[in-house]
């Protein structure tokens, strides 16, 4: 697992929950909310899909770690790595 793969995983999830959003030009360093029409209900779905598809738990207090693709990659990488070795 690496950070680019994680960014792609998050983008794939967004494509699934918000098929009407255009994802070709998402800037990894900018907050997702500032470039896409996503609200707190959509972020819940990102969390739920990470849990369902990859067995990763994101506690409610840490949802803000998912605000940009870069922060997703930084925050999720250790979780993916622990998952892979467990």
């Amino acid at each position, binding site marked *: 697992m690496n950070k680019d793969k994680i960014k792609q995983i998050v983008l794939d999830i967004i494509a699934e929950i918000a098929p009407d959003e255009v994802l070709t030009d998402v800037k990894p360093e900018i907050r997702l909310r500032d470039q896409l029409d996503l609200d707190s*209900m*959509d972020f819940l779905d990102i969390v739920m899909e990470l849990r369902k598809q990859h067995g990763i738990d994101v506690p409610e207090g840490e949802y803000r770690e998912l605000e940009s693709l870069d922060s997703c990659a930084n925050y999720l990488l250790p979780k993916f790595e622990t998952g892979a070795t467990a």
Partner: protein
Amino acid sequence: MSTVSPKDSTADSHYDVIIIGAGLSGLSSAVRLGMFGLKVLLLEKHYIVGGLNSFYAKGGRKFDVGLHALTNFPSPSSGKSSPLFKLCRQLRIPLDSLALQEQTSSRITFGTTDLRFTNNFDFFISEIERVFPHEQERFHRLLSKMENFPAYSVDAEELSTRNILAEELNDPLLAEMLLCPTCYYGSARENDIDFPTFVMLFDAIFKQGLARPEKGIRALLDPLTSKLKELGVERKMNTPVKAVHAEEDRITKIELENGEYLTATHYISTCGGLETETLLQPPPQTKNFEIGRFSIIESISVFEGHPKAWGWDETVVFFNDSDSFSYNEPKELVDLHSGVICIPNNYGLPSLDQKQESKLRVTHPANYSLWSALNEESYAGQKKIWEGKILENGLRYLPTIKEKVAKFKSKTRMTDTFTPRTIKKFTSHENGALYGSPTKRRDGATSFQNLFLAGTDQGYVGIVGAMLGGIAVANNQILRNL
């Protein structure tokens, strides 16, 4: 572990969530929870889903029960901020699949004053400025007050809209004309509407707008039920609940009328706050929900041809015969002073089919106790009598010349009417209360840790409100805490 102990076999029939009621809120909760792998059971006492927003066939024709309009149309100005857009995304039902047809135009008519509106909010503002030029500045101040009010927040203060409108506006007629459509589309409170609900409905009706799925309510019910099937959500129809058993601050099991007991970790009830308390065993010491008083009668006439041939090109007309609007449980069976007309064929482009049939729906406030006290014979008789009165009265608010009334009646192929009794049957609400109890629990929480209310008594009303309410309870009370 490979062996199954007796304890494990009881765990097999244990659910993560049991939901009472397969109306739009229950169906929406079930889809959300099933989507993320929870083991869900949906219980419904009828043989058909939808609750008040259901459908039936009569005389070889299809009817929707509750659907006048789907509010919150994602118009170019509201777009992705419309709750309807959001709920489609949450349920993963493509908005396009609803094939929404927009209203032509609609009207609020009080005596000799008319305010027209379309799905273009600027047009409604220009109407208000034209009809109430002396209120222009105050109306805009009211609009910014509404924008700044946290109407969508779960702890929004339930202020009286009548009081606020009286403070903000000078002309009482404008206040009454704003109250009429918002009360009819969602006030559980007599003669007033809570300010947060007023703001939400004002946005839903005027800022966003009215539309109808081409296939009616089934455009929503069919994808929801097929999703439940795909997700493996279990559904028991014809299965009324007899009691909800509690110990201290937790629900322990559900008892069905058929004698079966079921257990779950969480329970969601959509049958109403008061009605859920009635199911509790032991019964609660205090009742937390006020009884709703507002119910309706609706008469649907099926007539030959397109409404345009009769000179009717509007979709919805909210009418009142004087300058002051009363929204109460009437003292007689029906109150003809005000009501709502809906011509569903005036959504979308007119059909070119000359042989087509159209529908005219007319709704009035009605008294549940009086209707339910009638025996079967006089119930049927009164229904017939009021059908005639409602139609004749309603035609006064459409561009109709007097001589046409008899002709229209002769072109009416059938009429069907539902009363407060019907509403009680479909919603379980005490008193046939259309919008449930005036006491609302926006977050769905109850005094029991694992019991949540969804649907009308959350205070999010109408089709869109019910669905969003169901989604919010699933999200905030269950999924977020997994």
